[in-house]
């Protein structure tokens, strides 16, 4: 017997989402080609559109953007380090997408927990890849080099200095990305949201003690939904009544 569908990997496709996919892919390519070199003290801005796409469309959506960008970079002869970026982007897309879909991202507290979780996830995967390719030496990214230099000057060993640098820098990057994504979705104009078919609200979650509380909560939600429906109907009826009155006048 097949198990329940958790909806974690479900991806909705409509014209708005396709437009968004194209725009985010182009933005990621532009960020990879230009901004990483120009503003090397800023976060890896090329991860921002991928994570935004993941937040809106789910893990599969973000993964598609990451793969398309990787293929583009590969064909245009980018450096081998893009393999690390591709693995990082895909793993983050899957993780962050699941995190949003599970309802943890709906509140500011959830965003902070997401920052810590994404940092942990990203660094624990990124560091072994980095060690395998470069052995702890940091060949790219000025902000990492800067921090690494300071630590080594104080006599810190390369391995510990690398781990610490990645943790600090990734934490700052993730904090910037996740809060930007959160406020973009909350504050973007309605016309943009509709054009790209972006839902304004995030999936939410609530923790209960036991089944009784869960039942009570579902019942409350149902009643709330019914009440809201009635209010909406009443508003519509009142609106029609006012319109009729105006017509009579």
């Amino acid at each position, binding site marked *: *017997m097949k*198990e329940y569908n958790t909806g974690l990997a479900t991806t909705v496709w409509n014209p708005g989402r396709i437009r968004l996919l194209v725009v985010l892919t182009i933005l990621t390519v532009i960020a990879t080609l230009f901004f990483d070199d120009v503003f090397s003290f800023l976060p890896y801005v090329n991860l921002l559109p991928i994570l935004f796409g993941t937040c809106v469309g789910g893990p599969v959506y973000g993964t598609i953007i990451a793969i398309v960008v990787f293929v583009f970079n590969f064909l245009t002869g980018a450096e081998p380090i893009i393999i690390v970026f591709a693995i990082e982007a895909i793993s983050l897309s899957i993780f962050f997408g699941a995190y949003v879909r599970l309802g943890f991202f709906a509140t500011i507290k959830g965003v902070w927990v997401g920052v810590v979780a994404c940092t942990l996830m990203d660094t624990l995967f990124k560091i072994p890849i980095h060690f395998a390719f470069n052995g702890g030496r940091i060949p790219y990214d000025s902000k990492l080099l800067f921090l690494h230099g300071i630590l080594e000057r104080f006599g810190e060993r390369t391995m510990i200095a690398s781990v610490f640098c990645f943790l600090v820098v990734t934490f700052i990057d993730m904090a910037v990305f996740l809060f930007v994504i959160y406020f973009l979705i909350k504050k973007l104009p309605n016309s943009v949201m509709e054009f790209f078919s972006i839902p304004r609200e995030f999936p939410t979650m609530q923790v209960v003690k036991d089944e009784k509380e869960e039942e009570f909560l579902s019942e409350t939600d149902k009643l709330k939904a019914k009440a809201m429906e009635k209010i909406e109907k009443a508003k519509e009826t009142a609106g029609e009544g006012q319109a009729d009155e105006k017509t009579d006048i």
Partner: protein
Amino acid sequence: MQKKIYKKWQIKKLVTWFLGIILCGGIFLQYTTWTLYQDKVAEDKYWRGALLESPVDEEKAIALSQSATKVTVGTCVESLKEINMKNSYYRVAFKVWFKWRGDKSLDLANNFHVYNGTISKMEIITDETVNGVNYQLCSVDVNVFKNFWTKRFPLESHQLRFYIEPSYTIDEVVFEGDIENCEINSSVSIAGYELKRFANGVHTNEYESTYGMPDQEKGSYTSEFMTQMELNRSGFGLYLKCFIALFGTSLWVFIMVILCTYHRIDPLSMIPAALFGTVSNIMIGANLLPDALEIGLLEYVNAWGILTILCGALIIININRIRTKYNDNKFAALFGRILSMLLIFIVILGHIVMPIAAYL
């Protein structure tokens, strides 16, 4: 708006297992990739160090060798006949020549040995004097003892060195390298390896013991000619041979975990066979190495395989427990999906980064 309701135990279980896997896997991979990479880059240091080796007391060596005959030495490696890691030796066939002016009584062809080596065959090809230059050319087949460095086995590289040492001390004979004429046969090959580099050098050796000689206070000095070659694994053939069973059992565990997640089946009884297969897999590689195993890539990958199976088994046990104790099939599916995807991702990542960190 979609709303998810979780019970406390669900969040606790999901977060604990997710963090457990990610921390154990991440830290294990960080440690292994770091040690393997450091071992790999250390090879270059050893290579340069062997060329720059200097005697303990250089001034004394120079003073002793003032009146010694200067003999020009060179080698040409013809073939590498065998590399036997299990019994710690390699067999090499080479030609060695000695050239010197003056003292005709010197007979280097019959008065040299290979340090840590057993000459199984030695033939003097040429022994002549041309325009006052004495020249001796010999063909040598020797077994050289070497403790092979197996940390990165089966993707390891080896630096093979042999030292030609005269039976004369440094006050009689001093070696000079005929470096420009030293060569290695360009078609030299040994199954599974490729030649990376080749170099020669001359060193002075000081013996620590006087061997009880009554008129000596310190060990004697000798001049020696060093030939070194670096071999690297030519590909991933042996790596695959050593771990193909492990990859198979890991794949089997992935199937078990996915089966348990997506269908209400308990595959726990199929796990012990996979565990047995993985544990015994180490014997394939271990049989090629000396009995005293050095902890390295072979153990890391096998430990990674065992951790994969244990982790898969624990995920299955947890899914079963969620289904039987809490009767919560929906959460069992969610828990299984998240953890199985994480397991598959981290295991594949490990099988990519560990060989990359080790291979030169």
